[in-house]
């Protein structure tokens, strides 16, 4: 099997011809051109899709299902044509990494939008009752993607700790009283129970269902992992509860981005035996200069922590918040520097920093192609 696999991290932008029908909006010429242009670029026979899109409005439920499926096909082919070894569909079947899983659970009620940054908001829910998983929520999605993917599939799922931290808690902390002498312990205890219940009742059954479908690569996303410094042990515990006896049966990847990574060590080392790959974002913090010196590769310093464990290292080499197209040589140098620090190039897997949903398909595709070329330049 080829070493140093290239993979994405999850999201790709949803094209407007995918989103507008679901929002009840009319498609315009630009939307149709996007679908046509990318059909040509990706060499897709998409007469069925283009025929439906030509209606421009009043799409039936069946139409929307077909459009959604085609978005998956396009995204898969985009990633495969870019040359990636492991693929997903850019999350075309999902709303968003938090809202999608919560929608499939009982015991949660959406309360409204709250700000993330700038004018970016997300719908946040409260846990108001006992958590019940209605049914595993990735199986159908995986089935659709499995029909069309030619390369190996890696599925991202949102982890228990992040689901807990991004939710309000009206259930586990319902007896919390301000000013009480045990207020801090009560809060901590409530959050722990909330996270562990999500791990056991929601994430683990989802993973079991995916394993039963034959999934070989699963990525657990925990962007909230370093939000609260004294809860990193809880992050680790929740991951262990989520994976449980599935450890070793599937290749598990853990993705954490835009975090204070040094805080995670040495706790992260406890996940050896549970998680195979740890993926971090690095390019966002790095210079754009070529070279393999520490001054040029400032974004990659935390790699030294990986000399104390044997994880595969998911190396973020593309900045996902910028349209800057990394030259293959820059990616090559980032990889070579990482290999030098680790002392073992075989441990590297190559990926963008995070999902590419904030970039156009043109930019995402070019970045990813360069990423694959950069890997080949560095490691052959």
């Amino acid at each position: 099997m080829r070493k140093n696999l290239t993979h994405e991290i999850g999201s790709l932008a949803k094209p407007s011809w995918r989103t507008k029908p679901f929002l009840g909006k009319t498609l315009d010429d630009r939307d149709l051109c996007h679908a046509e242009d990318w059909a040509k670029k990706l060499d897709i026979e998409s007469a069925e899709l283009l025929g439906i899109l030509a209606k421009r409005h009043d799409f039936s439920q069946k139409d929307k299902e077909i459009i959604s499926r085609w978005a998956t096909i396009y995204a898969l082919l985009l990633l495969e044509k870019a040359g990636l070894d492991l693929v997903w569909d850019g999350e075309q079947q999902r709303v968003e990494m938090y809202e999608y899983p919560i929608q499939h659970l009982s015991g949660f009620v959406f309360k409204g939008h709250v700000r993330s940054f700038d004018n970016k908001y997300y719908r946040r829910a409260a846990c108001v009752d006992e958590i019940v998983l209605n049914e595993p929520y990735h199986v159908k999605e995986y089935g659709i993607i499995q029909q069309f993917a030619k390369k190996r599939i890696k599925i991202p799922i949102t982890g228990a700790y992040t689901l807990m931290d991004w939710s309000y808690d009206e259930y586990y902390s319902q007896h919390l009283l301000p000013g009480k002498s045990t207020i801090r312990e009560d809060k901590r205890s409530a959050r722990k129970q909330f996270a562990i219940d999500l791990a056991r009742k929601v994430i683990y059954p989802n993973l079991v269902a995916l394993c039963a479908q034959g999934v070989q690569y699963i990525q657990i996303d925990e962007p909230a992992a370093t939000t609260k410094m004294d809860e990193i042990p809880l992050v680790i515990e929740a991951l262990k509860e989520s994976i449980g006896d599935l450890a070793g049966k599937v290749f598990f990847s853990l993705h954490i981005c835009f975090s204070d990574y040094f805080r995670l060590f040495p706790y992260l080392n406890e996940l050896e035996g549970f998680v195979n790959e740890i993926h971090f974002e690095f390019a966002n913090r790095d210079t754009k200069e070529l070279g393999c010196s520490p001054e040029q590769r400032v974004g990659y310093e935390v790699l030294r922590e990986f000399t104390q464990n044997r994880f595969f290292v998911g190396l973020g080499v593309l900045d996902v918040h910028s349209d800057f197209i990394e030259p293959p040589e820059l990616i090559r140098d980032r990889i070579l520097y990482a290999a030098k620090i680790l002392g073992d190039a075989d441990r590297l897997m190559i990926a963008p920093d995070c999902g590419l949903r904030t970039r156009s398909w043109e930019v995402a595709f070019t970045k990813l192609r360069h990423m694959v070329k950069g890997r080949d330049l560095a490691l052959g």
Partner: protein
Amino acid sequence: MEILLTGQYPRSEALIEASRRFDRGLISSAELKNHQDKDRLDFEELQKGFHICSSGLFNWADLMRPFQEILPGARCGPLKRFYETNLFWRLLELQESSRIDESKIEEWIKTYFPSSSANSQARRLYNLPFLYLFKEYSQGCNMENIALILEQIVRGLFVNKKSVVCFYEPAFGARELTEQEKTLGRLLIENLKKEGKSIYLWSNFYPLKNRKFYFSLPVDGLGVDFYANSVEEILPDFPKNQTLLAGVLNTESTALEDLSFLNQLKENISAQNIFLTPNGPSELIPRQVMDQKVKQLKEAVYAEKFNP
């Protein structure tokens, strides 16, 4: 007891949608301002009867962003997580020599602390980041110069005779302050207090690590988050006759508060020295939920009924 709605108030769903549309170029800045003004008017209505009212800061992206318009050469930088929340601010990139452009202060205040004919009898609350918060979310400028920047801004705000400046500062609980930081913080407050105006300090989310120092500061009100601090820890040492900004509106939960705690507060501190505030940034809660929390609190405080 009074209610004081410190910090940025959450935006309505309509303003959120308008902000998104503005970012995409689908509406003009004038249309966006209309939505911001509507939110502000609704918020003023919610504060009817309060003795100190806030404009809600609906046109602030975060507590740092507006400063780039008044500090020549300042620009917005990368995102940084706001303490232990899922909210992100942008770092303000400054130069060591950064100073407020005095010629712009008046216009800046009108833009970012708009006055209102509603609640005209009330004093006006001006929320600002304190020294350590400003340093935490900026780059390129040392703390001494930041203190000078804050002094300039506050003196401009003090022109309004009814002003109350409320400095927001999680660092009083988040970490141990150094002796130099404490000296600079005290000096800043002492310099501003020479103007004879009201200054509050609002801290939250953490147990108060620097309690002795915090309680010794010559301000007119001190904030305590009672979802991170217990009554037994805090109130015995709380300065006599000092005003308490009691963080009792829980911005980490959408559940309506059990208000029986207010009885406990009144047992320890004279009611006239208590302001009830959010325990953290209200922006962490959706607007309609925060409105409900405030309305429940208002009913209880006015009726003096704290047993729901």
